[in-house]
């Protein structure tokens, strides 16, 4: 009973922690580019400001899909924290992205369409690797339950190649350079969320914080019962993502797909074969 309360509090705090992670990330990124960077609490300033903007919506379905995007990703994070089914988590996350894509396509704006199109392409790029990751975890662990994965010995030693594949697709997932085609600000002005504003944009903005929690929790899973190793992996991944984001330029979406299918996917697949025949 007590653990349920603690987990519920964790779920409720998840957006707050995600916002803090986002703030720290912006600061780290700024220091890497030799500038001062915004305040660490910057995402929360944005949050309060967006809450009080005047309500402007394109149409009600569009706004509803944006809010549902936020809610479904929060549910995915909740299932992840409560130790539910890994496959369920991955598909809830897919659902939230699909809702965003539908929202993007529901307006008449061409930039919104382009952004939704590219988000769909990036799903094509990263989703197979995530599913292969779940299958290899099942092959090693005999269970999709996250609570049993967290209780077992570290997955990193048994499936290092899968972890490398995960690292390769995380920039696509989090829309970071060199794979940030989905929200390329200079080309398509921000992606599928371009038509949202005010409180509805806030839902998209907060969903981005939850995305960080989702990704870093997936990375944390590789530590297994060794929480220190998991925390180390999370910090290492954070530094790796920011260094990569700052040191690379955007590639074409075809190159992104090719990279995902010919590098990341085979790496994950080889690891799956090794675990299956071991």
């Amino acid at each position, binding site marked *: 009973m007590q653990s349920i309360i603690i987990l519920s509090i964790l779920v409720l705090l998840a957006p707050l922690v995600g916002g803090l992670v986002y703030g720290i990330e912006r600061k780290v990124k700024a220091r890497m580019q030799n*500038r001062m*960077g915004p305040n660490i609490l910057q995402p929360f300033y944005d949050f309060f*400001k967006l809450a009080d*903007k005047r309500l402007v919506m394109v149409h009600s379905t569009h706004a509803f899909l944006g809010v549902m995007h936020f809610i479904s990703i929060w549910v995915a994070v909740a299932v992840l924290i409560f130790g539910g089914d890994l496959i369920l988590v991955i598909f809830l996350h897919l659902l939230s992205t699909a809702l965003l894509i539908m929202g993007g396509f529901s307006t008449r704006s061409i930039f919104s369409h382009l952004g939704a199109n590219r988000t769909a392409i990036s799903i094509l790029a990263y989703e197979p690797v995530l599913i292969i990751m779940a299958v290899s975890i099942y092959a090693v662990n005999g269970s999709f339950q996250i609570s049993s994965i967290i209780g077992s010995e570290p997955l990193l030693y048994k499936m290092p190649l899968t972890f490398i594949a995960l690292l390769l697709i995380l920039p696509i997932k989090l829309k970071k350079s060199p794979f940030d085609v989905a929200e390329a*600000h200079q080309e398509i002005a921000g992606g599928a969320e371009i038509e949202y504003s005010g409180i509805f944009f806030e839902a998209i903005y907060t969903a981005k914080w939850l995305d960080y929690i989702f990704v870093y929790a997936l990375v944390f899973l590789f530590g297994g019962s060794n929480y220190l190793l998991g925390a180390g992996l999370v910090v290492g991944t954070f530094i790796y993502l920011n260094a990569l984001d700052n040191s690379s330029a955007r590639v074409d979406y075809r190159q992104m797909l090719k990279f995902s299918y010919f590098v990341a996917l085979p790496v994950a697949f080889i690891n799956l074969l090794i675990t299956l025949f071991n």
Partner: protein
Amino acid sequence: MRPVRFNINAKKANIQDAVATVQAPPGFSGEGFFTTKMSDVVGLARKNSMWPLPFATSCCGIEFMATMASHYDLSRFGAERVGFSPRQCDLLMVMGTISKKMGPVLRQVYLQMAEPRWVLSVGACASSGGIFDTYSVLQGIDQVIPVDVYVPGCPPRPEAIIDGFMRIQDLVGQESIRRRNSEQYKALLNSYGIE
């Protein structure tokens, strides 16, 4: 009708009985303590999260790029996220010569921004027409939209743009939470033929 979540005008207490009400001592009437704290918090948040919408038509836009870059770094003030959708932005930065044909476009962009919104006029051309005292150039953008702060210079240095930006921040931090519902603001917009 626009959504109004707080009452600007305090409601009169509807006391019919013979209950004596205490007169508040001077200095304690007006906005309640809670709303004052609320407006402080929102003012702080708004002040530190002004998302600029660059409307750059000529050379002042180059100075703006320098302002956004590493050395001057406008993101220190929370203006890191340059939005190219007017709906998501708070601050319209007009940089450069606005010709008379561009005037309606500028006004359209201003109207598309969701309130609260502010306007920073950067450079001599945007503020007053500058050296272009000709038939084709708008003599100052305040002929079509209300402007909050003018930054002089031809073009202004990034320091000057940052100074103008900080003046906007001062304005935003001290403003009442619902400036957009006040009579004064409505009268100002009406004088520009908006709403």
